């Protein structure tokens, strides 16, 4: 995979020859702005349905290994 990635990055060097100094970057096709909805309570996802997808649910929460490596 290292060889493949090196080959790709070499190929991607083709844009180095372009003079892009006066070009504005384009991150989105069209201008976007924050969209807000009315601040009213609406139903959320079903808690049990969400937890049913978790690899290790415990007491209504997502159980994860300790972040420092020590078992609590």
């Amino acid at each position: 995979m290292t060889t493949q990635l090196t080959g790709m990055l070499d190929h991607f060097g083709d844009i180095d020859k372009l003079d892009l100094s006066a070009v504005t970057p384009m991150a989105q096709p069209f201008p976007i702005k924050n969209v807000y909805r009315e601040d009213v309570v609406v139903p959320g996802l079903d808690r049990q349905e969400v937890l049913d997808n978790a690899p290790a649910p415990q007491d209504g929460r997502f159980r994860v290994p300790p972040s420092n490596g020590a078992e609590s």
Partner: protein
Amino acid sequence: MTSEFVSVVDIVGSIRGGKTTASDVLEQHLARIDKRETEIHAFNHIMAESARANAASIDADLKAGNDRGPLAGVPIALKDNMCTRGVPTTCSSKILEGWKPPYDATVVTRLQQAGAVIVGKTNLDEFAMGSSTENSAFGPTRNPLDTSRVPGGSSGGSAAAVAAGFAAASLGSDTGGSIRQPAALCGVVGVKPTYGMVSRQGLVAFASSLDQIGPFTHTVADAALLMEVIGGHDPLDSTSLDQPVPSLTAVLGQGVKGMRIGRLADMPDGCEPEVLARLDAAFAALKAAGATIVDIALPSLSYCLTAYYLVAPAEASSNLARYDGVRYGLRVESADLISMYGATRAAGFGAEVKRRIMLGTYALSAGYYDAYYGKALKVRRLIANDFAAAYQSCDVILTPTSPTVAFPIGEKTSDPLTMYLCDIFTIPTNLAGHAAMSVPFGTGAHSMPVGVQILAPALGEPTMFRVAAELERAS
């Protein structure tokens, strides 16, 4: 359209006219699945039981005189990166195997409200990263027209499902050509709408500034109908355009008289001669129908591949950070949290996904941001400027959809860069956010189908569909 299959429009008419029932139509499609799915592998998940229940419900409602919508009784397949509540949605990745979304994508809701019968979830390149549907964790999909060949990708399962008559239509997603290229390789119609015209809510994100959902169908009229059902503003997608989808079914008979069709003055290398011959035939057909052919230039076209393969992996590397083994999907247990993240992602992601995450994180890293991602965003602007200039002198642009017909399975898997070159004609549209579609237009090498791509500016769907309908009449 292959004569053995019935179009969406005809299915709707037959059911409404009482000539057949939703259940009978569904059984015909399920019988074809039974016969050929083992060989083709279009689906990750077949929903025969729920489809039968839905079809029976539609038949009962129609019998009682209730309207069930414009797609009542039409069997439709969904690419397996669209969320379906309570139904597995895998993105053809081991990291999401077994996940059942707690909500439906907006397009799924709209199809169901229109009376469509969902028959299953189709195979794809893992997380939609690929051009052949060989990158699926669950094995490749084969082209129904020649099973030694690929169906294209990444929506190869959706294209194959329609081409094999497993569904009357399907939905795919197109980030760099993932609807149009498989449509071309399988001989069906495929549409990539203007960015924002179809809601992305519930589409598992790959590259959010490029992704769009669109239909696969046998006919242009079917695609127009599907677009009218799935398109339009959705408050749940902040990039959704706040305007209604234009009427497309109404414009199909308007012809192309007086229209200006753009032709690339400099065609990129690597196209098969038979593909170019079909493109010439398409230009001739449109000219005969009253259009004018004008030469145009897209000077930045050759740089699009680089821009795309930096922008898309950069966005993907961010989007795919959510697969961490905590809330859903695969977890590989480890002693600590960081090790668990690493072990889970190492086991859950396939080679192409890892390749793109690494490319993306590299392109976004502090020392290389300006050299790669920053430059790619500027090249993106150049291609948008090229299109703006070209559309001063033409209404649409015609190109091949793919430089080649469907290639043999395994031919390009060892060299990702060669695979990426399949997307040379489709990528520019996604970078610009414009509309494009592929229409079957005869056959090329090995008697495999050739697709002609119609490119249109943003919101140019009505013009694009008029051209597509004319090409369909001429093919």
